[in-house]
């Protein structure tokens, strides 16, 4: 009996079964590809975090430790590739004697083995001269006006200075971790690396510092710098746990003689936080898509309910038992489930290949297999849910009479009567307010704690909004098609003419089905819209972050102490490809005893080379505050912290001490507080000032510029940067936006999200179009009989179109309007709740109009296509249609 049934099923209901399988396939493909993608990006985050660390571990020996024993213990620790000693010696200062004598304050002298640069390539960046021998760090070289080949004196407390010959100039990109206080908690780390640093070959260091070690052992210390194997678990959290455990293990085995400065662990700790955010994003953006696919599938099986009930009744009369009916339903579910899973997995592989060039989304085979299994299991579950469950319900309860009641005077659903939609919306609001009180902290990853806590609770806000707004849409449809059917009739008059009233009352009787369809379309459209807006805003902010960090398309940073005036902008402006150049003063200013960066801008023209978002400021828009700086040159923008520390209110006098260009002495310059600045191009993340450049220049007797912001119109950035570099030589540092874009921020950068975006936007588009087309097709298929009767009663083609298009128009207009409204609300809420992933937080949402227009157009197109097909099918001789049904 099963086989006969199956054969009949395949022959008679092939199209419906394949639609159900397609719905399952979409859900499986979405889950499979997003999951694999998530796993793959987590692995990328781990790899990247590890690759960015110059020295994995810095092991500090305690004073009384046996250096050889510690070295042996470190070298034999599992996972350690190389460990070399690095010596730290404190100097009272450096000096050079050329035409004039230059001296510096206290500093640090490192002793490194010859192999150091090869083992830890990211730690040293050669700038000039030789890459080995005695190396001066750039800022020190600038302070000493020293060049390769010059002789530098190293001051030693209580001893005579030692003299060495500089071989080259280097930069220390990771100076912060290099000079960390190993073992000290984050709060008591030095606020900045030492200003003056010299690197000596190991042997030279011993010659210089061994005498000092005897008299002042407190001024020298030894660290072991460790390169570990980077074969880590792919998940950042697991990798973090593995590495911190290894570090603790080493400390335990040396019984406290060695303390591990775990740079790799710190990087992985940051990465695991990003990974948790990626997971949240996956949930927020991926799950609704899968839910939609399930709803669509359920709509298809639901639309076949009448027919299924009829079949069941027939089988019953032929003596089939309840169990046999269930068995047949199970076979049907297995059939569509397996077909859907296979198609979905093939789809996921295709998506992977299109979006990432590999079916594994760049992940490992294990993660791909894992997610394939999860997605397939979900697919089978959906099949069971949408096929077996309704069949079961029908077989249990349905009588023929109940099956007949499909239109008309059914009571409003219980949730509508109890106002569930309003309850859900209110709950969504409450949750958002609650997460807001928590500062939208979705991910908590306390340092040193192996578990990371993600507040999935916040997910409930948008989820409830989505569902609640969907139900509210249903309520509106119910109201409009019920009480407001005259309005609908009037709207349809141009289309349906004399029949508009009849069409409207017909629709009002099936407002339940129509409402459900409108809600499905609205949910799909809103999913597409909010995903797109979220992604566009994320990209906008990633770009803003890169621009904040770099300052402009190309930024020229003068060496500290250089006295280049704004006039040099002319030289830069002459370089081909340069659109405009904007000088940006960079000074240091004392406010009380606190030293902060101060940026002097030309308020009228600054935005020609960089972008200022309103979100960077409080107390006015970017434009207003720049206007204030221009019209009241002594006004100043300060950080919120400074406002709090000094209890400032607008207009208050703020005296800063700035270095005078002529006397090099600090002089007091009066400013008036005009607003708060939180972010500014090239500025650090902590406190700083923004003021009018010409006022600062006038008051300090010097117009030295710290940086030039070069606008290239966004084109050929790397090329222009190279030209600028060639023109200026090593005198200034040239950075470009293209490079910064890749480097900035967390590992949750545009590169990672771009893939997610592509996959999601494609699925969202597919879902929106399918939702529209499918629900209309199902609705019209249910009413093929109606159309046939209408034709047989003498309805003309135009009159028939009034019925079909009337429904299509209501579905399209209702679905798109509700979808746009829900989408707008949802995007706003998503961006608010997910503030944590934005850096900086956006002042305005980015709306990707072109994508949204495509979504709208394709949805309308799908609906129009289905209507046209329905009209065409209704033209078949009505009598044959009636016979078949």
């Amino acid at each position, binding site marked *: 009996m099963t086989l006969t049934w199956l054969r009949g099923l395949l022959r008679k209901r092939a199209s419906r079964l394949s639609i159900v399988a397609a719905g399952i396939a979409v859900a499986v493909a979405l889950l499979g590809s997003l999951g694999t993608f998530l796993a793959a990006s987590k692995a990328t985050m781990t790899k990247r975090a590890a690759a960015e660390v110059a020295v994995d571990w810095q092991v500090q020996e305690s004073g009384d430790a046996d250096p050889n024993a510690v070295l042996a213990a470190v070298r034999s620790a599992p996972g350690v590739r190389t460990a070399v000693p690095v010596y730290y010696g404190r100097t009272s200062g450096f000096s050079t004697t050329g035409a004039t004598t230059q001296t510096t304050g206290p500093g640090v002298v490192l002793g490194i083995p010859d192999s150091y640069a090869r083992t830890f390539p990211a730690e040293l960046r050669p700038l000039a001269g030789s890459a080995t021998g005695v190396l001066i760090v750039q800022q020190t070289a600038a302070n000493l006006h020293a060049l390769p080949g010059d002789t530098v004196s190293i001051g030693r407390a209580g001893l005579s200075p030692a003299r060495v010959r500089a071989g080259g100039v280097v930069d220390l990109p990771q100076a912060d971790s290099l000079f960390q206080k190993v073992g000290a908690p984050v709060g008591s780390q030095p606020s900045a690396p030492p200003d003056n640093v010299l690197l000596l070959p190991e042997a030279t260091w011993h010659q210089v510092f061994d005498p000092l070690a005897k008299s002042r052992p407190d001024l020298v210390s030894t660290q072991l710098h460790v390169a570990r194997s980077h074969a880590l678990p792919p998940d950042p959290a697991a990798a973090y746990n593995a590495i911190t455990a290894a570090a603790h293990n080493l400390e335990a085995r040396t019984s406290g003689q060695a303390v591990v400065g775990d740079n790799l662990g710190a990087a992985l700790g940051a990465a695991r936080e990003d990974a948790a955010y990626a997971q949240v994003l996956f949930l927020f953006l991926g799950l609704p898509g899968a839910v939609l696919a399930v709803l669509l599938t359920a709509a298809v099986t639901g639309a076949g309910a009448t027919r299924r009930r009829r079949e069941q009744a027939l089988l019953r009369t032929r003596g089939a038992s309840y169990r046999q009916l269930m068995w047949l339903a199970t076979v049907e579910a297995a059939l569509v489930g397996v077909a859907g899973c296979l198609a979905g997995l093939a789809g996921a592989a295709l998506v992977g290949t299109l979006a990432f060039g590999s079916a594994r989304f760049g992940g490992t085979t294990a993660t791909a297999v894992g997610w394939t299994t999860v997605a397939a299991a979900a697919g089978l579950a959906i099949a069971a849910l949408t096929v077996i469950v309704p069949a079961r319900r029908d077989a249990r309860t349905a009588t023929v009479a109940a099956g*007949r*009641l*499909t*239109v*008309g*005077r059914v009571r409003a659903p219980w949730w509508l009567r109890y106002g569930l939609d309003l309850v859900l919306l209110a709950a969504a609001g409450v949750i958002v307010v609650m997460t807001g009180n928590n500062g939208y902290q979705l991910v908590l990853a306390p340092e040193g704690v192996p578990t990371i806590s993600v507040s999935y609770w916040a997910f409930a806000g948008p989820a409830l909004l989505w569902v609640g707004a969907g139900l509210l849409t249903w309520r509106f449809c119910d109201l409009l098609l019920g009480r407001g059917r005259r309005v609908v009739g009037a709207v349809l008059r141009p289309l349906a003419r*004399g*029949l508009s*009233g*009849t069409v409207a*009352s*017909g*629709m009002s*009787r*099936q407002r339940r089905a129509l409402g459900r369809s409108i809600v499905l379309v609205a949910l799909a459209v809103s999913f597409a819209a909010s995903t797109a807006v979220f992604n566009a805003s994320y990209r906008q902010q990633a770009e803003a972050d890169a621009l904040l960090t770099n300052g402009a398309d190309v930024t020229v940073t003068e060496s500290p102490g250089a006295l280049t005036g704004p006039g040099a902008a002319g030289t830069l402006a002459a370089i081909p490809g340069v659109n405009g150049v904007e000088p940006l003063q960079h000074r240091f200013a004392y406010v009380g005893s606190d030293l902060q960066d101060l940026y002097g801008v030309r308020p009228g023209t600054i935005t020609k080379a960089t972008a200022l978002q309103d979100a960077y400021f409080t107390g006015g828009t970017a434009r207003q505050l720049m206007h204030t700086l221009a019209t009241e040159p002594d006004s100043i923008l300060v950080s919120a912290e400074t406002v709090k520390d000094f209890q400032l209110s607008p207009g208050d006098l703020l005296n800063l001490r700035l270095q005078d260009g002529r006397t090099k002495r600090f002089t007091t310059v009066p400013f008036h507080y005009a607003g708060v600045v939180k972010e500014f191009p090239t500025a650090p993340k902590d406190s700083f000032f923004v003021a009018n450049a010409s006022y600062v220049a006038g008051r300090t007797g010097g117009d030295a510029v710290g940086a030039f912001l070069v606008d290239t119109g966004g084109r050929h950035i790397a090329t222009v940067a190279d030209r600028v570099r060639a023109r200026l030589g090593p005198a200034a540092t040239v950075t470009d936006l293209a490079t910064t874009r890749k480097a900035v921020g967390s590992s949750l950068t545009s590169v990672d999200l771009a893939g997610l975006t592509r996959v999601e936007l494609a699925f969202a588009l597919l879902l929106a179009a399918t939702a529209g087309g499918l629900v209309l097709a199902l609705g019209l298929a249910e*009413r093929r009989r*109606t159309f046939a*009767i*209408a034709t*047989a*009663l*003498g*309805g*003309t083609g135009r*009159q028939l179109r009034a019925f079909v298009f009337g429904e299509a128009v209501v579905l399209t207009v209702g679905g798109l309007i509700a979808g746009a409204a829900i989408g707008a609300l949802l995007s706003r809420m998503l961006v608010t709740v997910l503030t944590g992933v934005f850096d900086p937080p956006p002042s305005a949402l980015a709306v990707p109009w072109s994508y949204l227009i495509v979504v709208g157009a394709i949805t309308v197109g799908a609906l129009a296509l289905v209507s046209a097909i329905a009209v065409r099918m209704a033209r078949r*001789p*009505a*009598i044959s249609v*009636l016979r078949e049904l």
Partner: protein
Amino acid sequence: MTSADSAMVRCAQVARTFGDGAAAVVAVHEVSCEVPPGARIALTGPSGSGKSTLLHLIGGLETLTGGTITWPGLGGPPHGRAGVIGMIFQGPSLLPTLNVIENVALPLRFDGVPSATADDRAARTLDRLGIAELASRLPEELSGGQSQRVAVARAVASRPKLILADEPTGRLDHRAAGHVISVLLEAADELDAALIVSTHDAEIAARLPQRWTMSDGALSSREVHSR
């Protein structure tokens, strides 16, 4: 009073074949007949003998594969003229999303009658058939007999000169069937319309004065019996 020129419908060698080749089914085979005004014809024959197909051909709802049909008494073919022929289909044929009065008014609306007038005429028809109280019910809220009476009302509301009823009593019990036939006959009398009722029930057929019998697609006999 039957004159050839005033016949409602005239069929000459009319044929309808479904499908082709080996699977071809000849549903109606070279039928020639004439329906005079005021005729009361019972179209009988076993199931599958071609009754429905012939009625559909006469109603202009089915295309011919042979012969010709003309409608001299109706002023030309009924195509695109809703309500010229009153048709009652075999099986349920009310639009489930329209209530009774909207269903009855539908052919009038198709014919371009303004909604107020159409509703008014539909209401009067329901009244005449004694089912005015059903006006605002939905088809799913009607019994089988009620549904068929509404279908009759819809067929006659446009005041057609020819009424074609395809097994209107097929699914009804004895009493309800008798009632529906009475309603049909009364309506036909009132409209002075010709009436053809297909049925495979001899008792129903006996209520009409003329009987045409079909077998295997052919009109095998035509008889008039006195009432």
